[in-house]
């Protein structure tokens, strides 16, 4: 009813204005206010849905995807590692995380102006997103801070102590995630392409911030913690690819919130990012399946869903900058490249990245971040303008060859921060509480040894 009334008054105002009967500024101002409020509500509706979609990626999405890939005795422990991040990640974010990420501090880390979410309310923060409540922006970014450390858990699956995992998560989020998020997306951040960064690096939805930081940290975890007991001589096949399939399908859908939501509005940029996201997932699944079919003689479901996730990872930084055909190309390359990293490079190097967090997120994120600099176009996203407001070329194929170098610098910073940060955090935790469960507990499984329960009770 309220809406109908406001539409009626809006049209009445418009008519009055057109007829020139009310030349005083107040009806125009009221009209503008009504239009602004309508746009804000529309954008806010999409952004709240996006927030929910991104949370759905962590659980049930990632929890099922990873949960199905481990052995039966570790299914709950693995799901818990994702779930606990929805708990800890949220509290940390509310207390200090949002401020450290998005407070306008130095180029490297935010200040404490939004400590305890002070001044983060219904009024938009025009610097970040002028048409949604500041609090919606805060919520949306929180979902990213939750899923990023959850991605790492794939590397140390089936062997990390729960207490150590909780400590790791807290320290990693504070020392690696918040600084990286601030550098790329925070006002005045070193790499921010839109808000005065010294090295403008394009990262639409988190290729560097989310996937490289988590994927590279995952590799460090796998190397520092060592292999699972019995790897690779004992069989450790996924206990339920059905669960993994459901999880991956939920990730695919959730990713529309992740990427299209990163437009921070419900306009054409969101549609473009949605398109690129979906297209890349499709060709990446195709690439992985084809590579596997040719190499092993059979196209597998696990290959299909792994490829789709690899494509979604790779398109993440590019999604708000590229047209549909380049999205198809980026996806296909990511499918093949990540297949090669997971199937060939991992066994060649011999590390036990149990659920391939590095092979998919680290490798796919790096490839995607660099290809963003190749395929980005101003038609989709006029990121760069000169002093007179003239739109400048964005990506290499459009004539801005230097952008690839900026992307590589951004990638390099994310790699270094992830490697150094994760290594130090792991060493400290190892000294304080120890990283791994005991060999007996590892044989028993995390479900019983860490949580005192079983995922499947076949007797009851």
């Amino acid at each position, binding site marked *: 009813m309220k809406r109908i009334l406001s539409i009626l008054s809006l049209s009445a105002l418009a008519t009055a204005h057109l007829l020139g009967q009310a030349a005083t500024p107040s009806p125009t101002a009221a009209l503008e206010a009504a239009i602004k409020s309508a746009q804000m509500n529309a954008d806010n509706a999409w952004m709240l849905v996006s927030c929910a979609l991104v949370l759905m990626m962590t659980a049930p999405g990632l929890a099922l995807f990873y949960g199905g890939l481990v052995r039966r005795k570790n299914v709950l422990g693995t799901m818990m590692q994702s779930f606990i991040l929805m708990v800890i990640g949220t509290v940390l974010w509310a207390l200090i995380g949002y401020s450290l990420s998005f407070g306008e501090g130095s180029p490297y880390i935010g200040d404490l102006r939004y400590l305890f979410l002070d001044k983060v309310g219904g009024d938009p923060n025009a610097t970040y997103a002028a048409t949604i409540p500041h609090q919606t922006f805060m919520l949306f970014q929180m979902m990213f801070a939750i899923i990023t450390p959850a991605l790492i858990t794939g590397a140390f699956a089936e062997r990390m102590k729960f207490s150590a995992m909780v400590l790791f998560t807290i320290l990693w989020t504070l020392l690696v995630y918040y600084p990286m998020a601030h550098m790329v997306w925070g006002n005045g951040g070193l790499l921010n392409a839109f808000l005065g960064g010294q090295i403008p690096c394009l990262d639409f939805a988190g290729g560097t911030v989310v996937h490289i930081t988590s994927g590279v940290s995952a590799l460090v975890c796998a190397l520092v913690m060592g292999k699972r007991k019995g790897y*690779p001589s004992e069989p*450790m*096949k996924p206990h339920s690819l059905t669960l993994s399939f459901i999880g991956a399908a939920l990730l695919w859908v959730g990713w529309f919130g992740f990427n299209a939501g990163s437009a921070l509005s419900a306009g054409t940029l969101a549609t473009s990012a949605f398109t690129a996201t979906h297209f890349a997932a499709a060709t990446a699944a195709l690439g992985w399946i084809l590579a596997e079919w040719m190499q*092993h003689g059979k196209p597998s479901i*696990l*290959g299909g869903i*792994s490829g789709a996730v690899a494509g979604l990872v790779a398109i993440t930084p590019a999604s708000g900058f590229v047209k549909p055909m380049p999205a198809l190309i980026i996806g296909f390359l990511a499918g093949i490249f990540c297949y090669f990293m*997971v199937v*060939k490079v991992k*066994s060649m190097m011999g590390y036990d990245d149990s659920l391939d967090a590095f092979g998919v997120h680290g490798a796919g994120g790096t490839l995607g971040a660099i290809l963003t600099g190749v395929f980005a176009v101003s038609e989709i996203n006029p990121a760069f303008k000169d002093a007179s407001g003239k739109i400048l070329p964005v990506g290499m194929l459009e004539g801005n060859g230097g952008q690839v170098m900026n992307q590589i610098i951004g990638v390099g910073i994310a790699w270094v921060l992830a490697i150094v940060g994760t290594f130090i955090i792991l060493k400290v935790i190892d000294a304080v509480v120890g990283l791994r469960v005991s060999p007996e507990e590892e044989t028993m499984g995390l479900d019983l040894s860490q949580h005192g329960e079983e995922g499947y009770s076949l007797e009851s």
Partner: protein
Amino acid sequence: MKKIEAVIQPFKLEEVKEALKAIGIDGMTVTEVRGHGRQKGHKEVYRGQEYQVDLLPKVKIEMVVASPRAEEVISALSAAAKTGKIGDGKIFVYEVSEAIRIRNDERGETAL
């Protein structure tokens, strides 16, 4: 009395049950088991990691019958379980010294 124990292909269970019912056998115990004989297992590949699966799912049927009926049961069972391919399974026959019905302590063939 004889105990007849057969390990068969799981997908043949329904046919075997029907065939036994047709000749009037109304008691049996069925267990899902894993194993292999001369039939070798198969290969599974997960993200390039190969696993050789040697133990395959099978179904074990156990029943005890009066000695004169044993041959009839064996041929019905064998005919129903046969595909002619490797992996069809095996039948083992044992002597049984006693049978007791717990409900009323009947003994011997009347307890079957």
